[in-house]
């Protein structure tokens, strides 16, 4: 009885956790049902995600997902990052039970929102 090792690993040792001094784009998404909150900050240069940080409060799945997502899109062109599909993140997490999909996908919602808000910036 436990989570996939990759979820435990990212939950215990989160990557890219913190804030950027001067983010080019940022967004917060929350799930009021359980109180999960995730903030994603982006440093964008030449239409590419140079830097990414996340901050969050919530369950292991949402926090692990945020951490993993930062690794997934760092260095990617903005357009490519915006096209990361739900299924891609879920399979990178090793699969998530259907009752917890909203937790797992919360960081991706924040990323898409940040990318949309920062789309005019370079």
């Amino acid at each position: 009885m436990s989570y996939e090792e990759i979820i435990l690993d990212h939950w215990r040792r989160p990557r890219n956790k913190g804030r950027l001094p001067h983010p080019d784009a940022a967004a917060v998404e929350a799930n009021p049902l359980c109180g999960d909150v995730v903030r994603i900050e982006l440093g964008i240069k030449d239409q590419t995600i140079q830097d990414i940080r996340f901050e969050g409060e919530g369950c292991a799945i949402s926090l692990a997902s945020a951490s993993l997502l930062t690794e997934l899109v760092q260095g990617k062109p903005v357009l490519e990052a915006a096209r990361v599909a739900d299924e891609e993140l879920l399979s990178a997490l090793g699969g998530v039970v259907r009752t917890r999909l909203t937790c797992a996908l919360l960081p991706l919602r924040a990323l898409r929102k940040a990318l949309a808000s920062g789309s005019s910036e370079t």
Partner: protein
Amino acid sequence: MDEHVRDGFPILQRTVHGKPLVYLDSAATSMKPTAVIEAEARFYRESYANVRRGVYELAAEATDCYEGARTAVASLIGARPEEIVFTRGTTEALNLAAWALGETRVGPGDEILVTEMEHHANLLPWQETARRRGARLCPVAVTPAGELDRDDLRRKLSPQTKVMTLVHVSNVLGTVNPVPEIAAEAHQVGAIVVADAAQSVPHMPVDVRELGADLVAFSGHKMLGPTGIGVLWGQRELLLQLPPFVVGGEMVREVWLDRATWDDPPARFEGGTPPIAQAVGLGAAVDYMQAIGMEEVRRHGQELTALALDGLLSRPYVTVHGPRDPAARGALVSFSLAGIHPHDVATLLDQEGIAIRGGHHCAQPLHRKLGISASCRVSFHVYNTIDEVGLFLEALDIVWKALG
């Protein structure tokens, strides 16, 4: 509790994730015994028609079944049948109460007292009434021990207090509020007292005369009955003064194109075709619980709650919310695991077939007061066993080992 009680609940024979189902979320909704499922099915098969209006035999039979359920519910809570209003559930009953009292008793500058431990169902209807009528909503504080702050209550009761509404048993803290004492204090300032009994009537003997409230709301689905049926009990004299919340068929005396006159309670508050089969199912649930005996239902709930409390309090990684004394509680315990989100606890226990609640249990202001965003909750009913409490506690240790 008779060990065969559990066998009478077909769903408890199934497995979840390959494990026998251990259902510990009865405070959200209870499972149904064959007696209730069959009573509803039998009514559809043998006696179904619309109620009250038909002059044919089948309609008379259906009406007898429906009114028989009303009599059964009345006998459970020491009431008269004409004081039992069938609603869709506790939420609708409390909306009815808040709207009708708002229309007749609450005006600009008046005050409505609620408490910090209310379920959203007994908070939002009063927020709306206060907003609509220009009244003030005054929340009574909860102490760190999880009880109502009686001094704060006394400070806030005044001649401006038109309504005092409170939960009988908290769905998060488990606290049994002393409704008779509080109702007496509120009545002294002339307030109408409303009690949300959704977590008490299903689990313990409740006599509405002893409770002392003027209006009492509860749901069928938490007391082994069907969904879609609930009850608003009211003092006859008060019900007679209240206007209908839902208007339409079956609740009128005479209708003209521009006006209508209302039928007497309870019909006045049951506009439209009511949940007839669900009422019949609720009647069967009441018969089922009365055959066990509400004293025994309470004793069993307290026994399991005491075991769960003991087990949780002895684990250093657990924080229990609410009273430590099982006698001061309903049949539920909420708790938190240090640094672990309740949804993670609930998901891992689910892998073992153990269904517990993780979330804010529709009581966000209370969780804010407790300084947490969510909590875990186990809750019991007649079909739960001592073994299940043990399985839950053992599994909780494994969760802690995996995530702690």
